[in-house]
Structures are given as C-alpha cells and as structure tokens.
C-alpha cells in the first residue's frame, strides 16, 4: 500500500508539465555550475600541479556542486511538499485515502517515499555529470558516494518537515511558506551563530550535511537525520489522526 501511494504521488507529479519544466531548469543550473567549476579547475590546474597535497578534481568540482544542491533543495522541497496533504485537503480528495482501508502510517510513509523517489530523479543528473569526469581522470569515489548519501538523508529531513507543515493546513501556499520558513530558520540558526560550539549548529540539517560534504561519515550525523525525519513523520501522522478526532 505504501508503494501504491508512493507511485501515485510520483505519477501525479510527472503528469504535470510544470514538473518537467522545473526539472529542465534545475538540470540547466546544475550543468552550468558544473561546467563553470570544471573550467576554473582546468585553468588553475597548471599552478596546482606545482604544489604538494593539492585538492583533487572531486574536491574542487563535485563538492561545491553538492553544496549548491543542498541549498537548492531547501528552497525546492517545500514547493513539492505543499501538494502532499494540504492540496489534497483543498481539493477534497483526501477523503479517498481516509475512507480507504489504510492506516495513517501508510498514507504518510507513502507520500514521503513518493516525493523521495522524485527527488532522487531530480538529482540523478549530478552523479552522472560527475562520473563523466571518470573518463579522463581518477575520482574519489568515497567522497562522491558520501555526498550522495548525505544529500539523500538531507532530502529525507526536508521532506518530513514539509510533510508535517503540509498536514497542518488546507492551504498549499501556507504549507510551502511555512516549510520554507522552518528550513530557512534552521539554516540561519546554523549560519548566524558564530561560535563553533554553539548548540544552534546541532539542530540544523545543513550543518550535519557539511560533514558528509567534506567526506566525513559520522554515525552521529546519520542518527540525527534519521531521528529528525522520524520525529516530523510521527508528528504528521498524529496531526492527521487528530484531524479526524477534532475536525
């Protein structure tokens, strides 16, 4: 059932022309950024070659690209999550799921995985672009895979926040703005606190992504993403149940 709902979400997204338009624009941005950094790297390469222990092509080209994607996702995910529940409520199609033999858990997880699959498609171009470099040079596979894992975990946390905010309202626009406000607020909490040991860093998904971005796989970061996502998914389930109870 979870798979059925997930595929329905995906199908619904791909049936809209605006989704394809957005996919095209994003791919254009990724490619432009990728080629731009690659060109910078090629220009600097003769000078870098004279130094010892220099950063390789993966660090110079791939790492900034993943960082940019992480930031873009923060702004993009709320646009997609607003549809998940708020728009269904507004279109009054949510009754179909509520009156079907499904548990709330299946509804929430179905929608969560549906959007996650879409985000995998959306970012699939990035590793493909990076691996074209493998034709001419050696890549740091660990760093690329670590970044991909981090990006997916980051996407999980964003989607779960967006899903929760979407379950709070019947207005998709409010859901989008609300989710964006929370995600941007978490990012600012991280970026604005100057001291390295500030606790504000710890609640920000982007801060935890930085370790993945630098190629550091920390079980603490993974645990953070899993817990963060789980908390918001459980909140979303509770919210849907409460909505049945309190109207």
């Amino acid at each position, binding site marked *: 059932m979870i798979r059925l709902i997930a595929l329905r979400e995906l199908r619904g997204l791909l049936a809209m022309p605006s989704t394809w338009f957005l996919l095209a624009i994003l791919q254009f941005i990724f490619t432009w950024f990728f080629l731009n950094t690659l060109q910078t790297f090629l220009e600097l390469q003769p000078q870098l070659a004279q130094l010892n222990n220099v950063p390789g092509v993966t660090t110079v080209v791939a790492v900034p690209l993943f960082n940019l994607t992480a930031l873009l996702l923060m702004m993009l995910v709320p646009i997609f999550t607003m549809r998940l529940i708020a728009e269904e409520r507004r*279109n009054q199609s949510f009754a179909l799921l509520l009156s079907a033999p499904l548990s709330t858990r299946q509804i929430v997880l179905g929608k969560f995985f549906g959007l996650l699959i879409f985000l995998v498609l959306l970012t699939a171009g990035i590793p493909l672009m990076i691996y074209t470099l493998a034709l001419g040079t050696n890549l740091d596979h660990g760093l690329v895979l670590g970044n991909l894992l981090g990006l997916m975990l980051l996407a999980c946390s964003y989607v779960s926040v967006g899903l929760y905010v979407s379950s709070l309202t019947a207005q998709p626009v409010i859901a989008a703005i609300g989710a964006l406000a929370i995600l941007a607020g978490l990012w600012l909490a991280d970026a604005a606190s100057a001291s390295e040991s500030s606790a504000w860093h710890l609640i920000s998904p982007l801060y935890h992504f930085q370790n993945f971005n630098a190629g550091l796989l920390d079980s603490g970061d993974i645990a953070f993403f899993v817990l963060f996502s789980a908390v918001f998914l459980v909140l979303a389930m509770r919210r849907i149940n409460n909505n049945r109870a309190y109207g």
Partner: protein
Amino acid sequence: MDAHNRLYLTKFTTTTGSLPLTLPNNISEITLSARNLQRRFGDHLVINDVSLELRRGEVLGLLGHNGAGKTTTMQMLTGCLLPNSGEIEICGFNLLLQPELAKANLGYLPETPPLYRELSVNEFLNFAARLRGIKPSSTAGVLAEAKRNCGLESVGKKIVGTLSKGYQQRVGIAQAIIHQPAVIVLDEPTVGLDPAQIREVRTLIRELGDTHSVILSTHLLSEVESVCDRVEIMQHGKLIYSDTSEQMRQHGNVSGFVVGLRNPPPLSSLEGIPGITHVEPLTATQFRVLHKPQDNPKSELLSMAERQGWQLEQLIPLQATLEDVYVRITSPKETGEALSKESTP
C-alpha cells in the same frame, strides 16, 4: 457466490483465519449499524444521538436542510471523522477498533468527488481499486465493470481534470463502487448532473441497492421518492423521523379531494352534504373539499351531482406530496409531534 461475498471470504481467510467460514452468510443481513453517535465541534453539538441501521438490499435516504448534519454523519460512517461517542459497525467490524477491515467493505463518495485531476480516468480508477485491496490481476475486470456501470467507457483515456462536472461526478461514483463494497455511502450523488444523467444515476443507485446497501444524502425529495426504500429525516443533528418512503407519504395525509363541476351549485349546498367539513373554491368550477377521514362523502356527492345536473368533470383525491410531508415534519411546530411519533427501526 457474487463478488462482494468473495471479498468477505478473502478478508476473513487472510486476516482472521480462525473465524468460521460460515460467518459471511450470517452477516449478510445488517451491513451497517451506528449506535448513539455524538459529535461536537468545539462547544457546538453537531450530531446528537444518531442511530442508524442498514440492511443488504436497502437504499436509505438521509434527508435534511442544509447544515442539518447529513455530511458530518456520513463522514463519521466512513471513518473520515471520529465520533465523540458512539459505535459504528460495518459488516460486523467495528470501524473504530478494526478500521482497515471495516473500510474494506465501504465505498464513499463525498460531496465533492475525491479525484486526482492530473491522472487519466483509467489510472485513477485503477488506483482506487488497488487502494481497496483489489489484486493487480483482477483490476482490469473490475475497471471495465465500473466503467460500464457509470457510462465511462468512452472517456477512459481522458484526464480527469478535463472532464465536465457530470462526468467527474460519475468517476466519483465509479471509484466508490469499483470494489463492490457491501456499504456504499453517497453524499448528494446527483448534484451537478443534467436531468438525463440524474435519471441514469438513479437507475444505477437502484440497481446497486438490490445487492448492496446504499445510504445517500439529498435534499431532492423526488430522489427519495424514486430511489429510496427508507427515509431518515435529520434536523439540528438529530434523526427526527424514520420510515419507509411510502409510509412517509402517508404521514399527515389530508382526507379530501378536488372536484370539478361544470355547472356548480352555490357553495352552501356543497357544504350541506353530510361528512364534508370544508369547501374552498379554487376556480369558478373547481372546489377543494375536505372531509372527516372516517366517512367519505364521495358517493353522496356523485349521486347528488347526477341528480341535480352539476355536470361532474373531475374528482381527484388529495394526496400529500413528499414535499408537503417533509415541510410538515421539519417545520418547527411539528417537530415535537414528529419526535413522539418516531418509529424505531
């Protein structure tokens, strides 16, 4: 064995294997029962002590003014809204304790049909069938059946969002019946349809009512007259009247007739006929005659008309329309009386 019984069997054997297989036959009688439902929104008591029972092969009409609580009741019966107190059982499963088993026997069309506008009709109905636990191998069959029943064969490949309102309503009905549920809940199913479509949908509901239990809400009295076996009238969150639609028409019936005389006598000579209590001229040649229910002065009047050359043209017994009865039952001064007369199902 028909399709819905098969569904029961699979449900019973797969999920509660220990239950005896004879059970499906025993529970085929009462398919839906709601007891003492109560629902508040804040301090406002919207539904107060509503009890309903529905049997297989029965179409129940839920009548009421706007805001009487029809939609809220239906939302509770389908698990979209939880009651504050009370119990709902669908095919023997408690909706609150075993929601998934109960909802497998339920089809629901809300006021606004729940559609995914970006999907095609086939995709949407396929999704609706799978959602209700129809196996992928048998979806093609049920899809064709539901499309045939709702007249959707020609629009299968069209996008739901591009269909007219009438067709969207039909898709909504199709998703509610695609899994052949024992209980079908329809909230104002004919709203937005043209007269021809209304007739088709009513025929369809009537057909469904023969093998399933249907509960529909409406404020169109003609719909109740043509479709429903039983009527429940709702007002201010309470069921104030419950009877068969035939009985309801009899409720508060007046005794009297309209008589047309081409050569009418003075009013006083009509009033003089024994048994007649009141004569009211409608036109120069037509009179509304009321009489005591126990003695009917029809034969007296006929013989007098013949003897005195009044030239009788027509004699139509007065029959209250469902509309009159409905207005009478729901009008404030009658509510108390109707409550005391309320028959328990």
